């Protein structure tokens, strides 16, 4: 039997984490929540909802938390790892679709893309589409790979990819760094259309212009100075 593990990086997400974990445990063998130095009850609630909680003593950023979660999943002998956001914007059934895509065995890396039209119409707000497109263009310019949703937090890694990935950046920029890893390590890649749930809460948590600029600078630094 294959071991499916969901990794959820979380920083001060006590409002949503319990629901996210409860939905995730239904479709995975184990849910690992990386409590990234939260100052609220995120870790406690995640544990009560059935997750294995790995705790960062201090906040290190979403990239660092993903790295820790993936490493934890590898140690727990995961055959497939799917990462999800803690703010409730991802649906468990979409995570299941990413697992299913990985289970077909012909890909190492899957992105759940909000920009790719599946059988349901996309629902991304216009300013998000704009930010995302800029992120995609920057990712393409720096790393030479075109993806339709470079900033999606719903992703899947095969066992091999999870074992070899090496994220060096700590923040949001790690989302594009995955793409660099994919290229450098010759992972086979697929995109699965997903539908994000946008609430005022999840929108308030995401990227804004200044975060975007910071991410861009760090990515350029990562690309040229390692």
């Amino acid at each position, binding site marked *: 039997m294959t071991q499916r593990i969901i990794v959820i990086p979380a920083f001060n997400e006590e409002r949503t984490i319990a629901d996210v974990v409860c939905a995730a445990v239904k479709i995975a063998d184990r849910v690992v929540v990386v409590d990234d130095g939260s100052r609220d009850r995120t870790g406690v609630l995640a544990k009560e909802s059935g997750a294995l909680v790995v705790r960062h003593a201090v906040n290190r950023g979403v990239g*660092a938390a993903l790295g820790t979660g993936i*490493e934890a999943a590898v140690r727990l002998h995961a055959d497939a790892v799917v990462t999800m956001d803690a703010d409730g914007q991802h649906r468990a059934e979409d995570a299941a679709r990413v697992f299913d895509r990985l289970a077909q065995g012909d890909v190492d890396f899957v992105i759940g893309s909000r920009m790719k039209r599946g059988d349901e119409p996309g629902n991304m707000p216009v300013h998000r589409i704009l930010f995302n497109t800029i992120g995609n263009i920057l990712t393409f310019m720096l790393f030479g790979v075109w993806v339709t949703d470079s900033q999606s937090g719903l992703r899947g890694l095969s066992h091999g990819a999870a074992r070899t990935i090496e994220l060096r950046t*700590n923040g949001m920029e790690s989302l594009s760094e995955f793409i660099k890893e994919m290229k450098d390590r010759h992972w086979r890649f697929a995109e699965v259309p997903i539908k994000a749930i946008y609430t005022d809460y999840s929108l308030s948590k995401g990227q804004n212009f200044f975060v975007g600029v910071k991410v861009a600078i760090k990515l350029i630094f990562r690309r040229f100075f390692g």
Partner: protein
Amino acid sequence: MHAIQIVLTCFAVFAMSRAVIRYRRGDMRLLHLALWLLFWTGVVVVALRPETTNLFANWLGVGRGVDTAMYLALLMIFYLLFRSFGKIEDLDRQLTRVVRANALREMEADLAQEKSRDQDSSGPR
């Protein structure tokens, strides 16, 4: 003599004395001491005889000595900024490594405890 010349000279002498003290204490290598002394001597020379910068400026092809000093200062600041940015990134990564190693160690300890508790409760009474 202008006030600025006195201030700069005094500061340079102070800085040189600090460098010598650090060298004597063994906190600084001879090469670094020599470089610092050279640098601050240069500052004193430029402060007392500003026209010397014009010689350097002419040689470089920049109009005025003061401009040359500004360009060089700017260049140095950019270089230092770049270096500190890189250094901070380095520290950031190292901190993440430490935090991660700690987190994973705690996770494995928790799992081991869980396992032994499970074995205790399912074992023969």
